[in-house]
């Protein structure tokens, strides 16, 4: 009978998986996950891919906002930079395994540029500067027609593996899911390193962090870079998935959605980014299922879907912030702990 967890070494305390069982559960989960693309319908595969992309982007945002405490409303802009880099490079014949990291790096560079104001700006003022970054990038992609195709958008050739084009959601899932897992594994490890701990120190109190010898500015900019790299990779996959990208793919509401994901999932938690991203990706789909099932009886529902989606998003955010400020990750941990020590949990 288990009575709790007892770590006898620092090493064990820092391990990614605190028990062998967690490792086994994860292995089973991964097998199931990779079986889904073989059987799922095209609609749900589309949802799966979008969710996986959202997970990467939300993890990136969480590194910046949740772990380092720098608020960013510019996430949609960095997604756009990643996506347009991909569109441009892929159209010039660069293979996908080079395109995806390159898009990430370009987005990271842009992120670091926009991260420079974080040296002087904090809190609300920083949020405003990143909001400005959003509008500036939006202007650039709308008007730099020769590269971005302007308002008409640009099409992205599908990635190809040994001459086989990954042109549908089924095949694309085998690209998106591994990238997603890779980035999550990296994120999980990041916070076991010096750099990750410096990020957290900055979040908790940047002046104290500086006193303790953390070079605040360097690490803030680095956080912007790492975060934007993630978001750029997500943008790259988004471009491959959407096949046509236009400025409309990257509205401000997308940045707000992603902030919503990490709020709902849990700030400063990799698991939270995953749960929040999945939750907010599935939410409109569930609503859509409900409304389309009921629209036979109530035709007005089709028209109410958009406000309904918006309203449910809003109320979910508000309710989570008031009643579960630590997000789904905290709830998940509580439930897991309940079952872990079952039947002697209290």
């Amino acid at each position, binding site marked *: 009978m288990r009575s709790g967890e007892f770590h006898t070494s620092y090493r064990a305390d820092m391990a990614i998986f605190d028990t062998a069982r967690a490792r086994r559960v994860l292995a089973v989960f991964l097998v199931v996950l990779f079986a889904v693309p073989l059987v799922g319908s095209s609609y749900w595969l589309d949802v799966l891919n979008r969710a996986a992309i959202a997970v990467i982007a939300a993890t990136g945002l969480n590194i910046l906002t949740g772990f380092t405490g720098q608020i960013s409303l510019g996430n949609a802009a960095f997604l756009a930079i990643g996506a347009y880099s991909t569109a441009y490079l892929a159209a010039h014949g660069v293979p996908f395994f080079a395109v995806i990291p390159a898009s990430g790096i370009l987005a990271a560079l842009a992120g670091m540029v926009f991260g420079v104001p974080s040296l002087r700006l904090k809190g*609300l003022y920083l949020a*405003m500067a990143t909001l400005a970054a959003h*509008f500036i990038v939006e202007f650039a992609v709308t008007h730099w027609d020769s590269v971005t195709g302007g308002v008409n958008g640009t099409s992205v050739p599908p990635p190809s593996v040994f001459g086989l084009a990954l042109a549908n959601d089924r095949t694309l899932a085998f690209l998106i899911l591994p990238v997603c897992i890779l980035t999550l594994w990296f994120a999980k490890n990041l916070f076991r390193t010096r750099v990750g701990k410096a990020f957290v120190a900055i979040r908790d109190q940047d*002046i104290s962090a500086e006193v303790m010898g953390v070079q605040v500015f360097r690490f803030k900019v680095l956080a912007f870079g790492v975060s934007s790299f993630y978001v750029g990779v997500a943008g790259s996959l988004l471009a491959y998935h959407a096949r046509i990208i236009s400025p409309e793919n990257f509205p401000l509401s997308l940045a707000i959605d992603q902030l919503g994901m990490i709020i709902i999932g849990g700030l400063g938690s990799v698991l939270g980014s995953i749960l929040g991203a999945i939750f907010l990706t599935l939410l409109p789909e569930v609503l859509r299922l409900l409304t389309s099932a009921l629209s036979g009886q109530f035709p007005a529902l089709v028209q109410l879907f958009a406000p309904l989606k*918006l*309203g449910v998003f809003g109320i979910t955010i508000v309710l989570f912030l008031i009643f579960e400020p630590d997000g789904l990750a905290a709830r998940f941990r509580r439930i897991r702990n309940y079952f872990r020590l079952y039947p002697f949990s209290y």
Partner: protein
Amino acid sequence: MEFFLQVLLNGLVVGSIYSLVALGFVIIFKSSGILNFAQGEFLLLGAYVFLAISSAHAPIGAALLLTFAFSAILGLVLERLVLRPLIGEPIISVIMVTLGLSSLLRAIVQGIWGTDTRPLPSVFSLDPIQLGPLPIARGYLYSAGCVAVLLVVLTLFFKYARPGIAMRATADSQQVALSMGISVRRIFALSWSIAAVVSAIGGILLATMRGGVDGSLAILGLKVLPAVIVGGLDSIGGAILGGLLIGVLENLSGGYLDPVFGGGVKEVAPFVALVLILMVRPYGLFGKVRIERV
């Protein structure tokens, strides 16, 4: 030259509306330190409620008063239900809750009134007033007048009225205000209702000028942010000046740069200015510099 003057004048009058909306932001921020991203929706809701009441054949004065009453109550309720539980939470939570609120309010408006432009009875004639060689729209003149009056009223309020002084005290230090017997909660609630009413005035003015109400009015909430930040989040005078500045900047860049870049500069210019100004003055032009201690 005439073109320049005309663009400048237009910038000033449009800016006066921005100032009005910016005032709403500042009033809330000044007392409670919250930047309310749902301000645009307050404006939208005010305009729609005014529309609903006045289309029930209520006299304009009554419709205005009812709308103000509604907005004041809305501000109170939201503060009580949504914002108060979040006192002391990190800034990101507070930003997100107002963003969530803005989605929710917009959805409610869309659900009730749809997305069509609802025509509003014309209050002002469309014929312009001639200011020398320059035509100027009547609606804008009224709005500039309104802003001037509100500015005076609010300045007097913060200077002489007891609640106004209490609000300033709260902004200065909540602890000291509390120990002086000021109910900080009541001050927060008051600031939210004042801001909601001011926004409703802005919404009604805009709607009458455009001859109709639709969801795009809420964009003002975002457009005004540069004005608020440039002026400094906690300065009433800064908000007014910021609004005028941004209005002029927007119109000048629209007049001179849009033809060069093929549109869109007018929308992005305020944000470029915002970044540049923040680089030089991290707390805006008139904002209070905060000294941080560990």
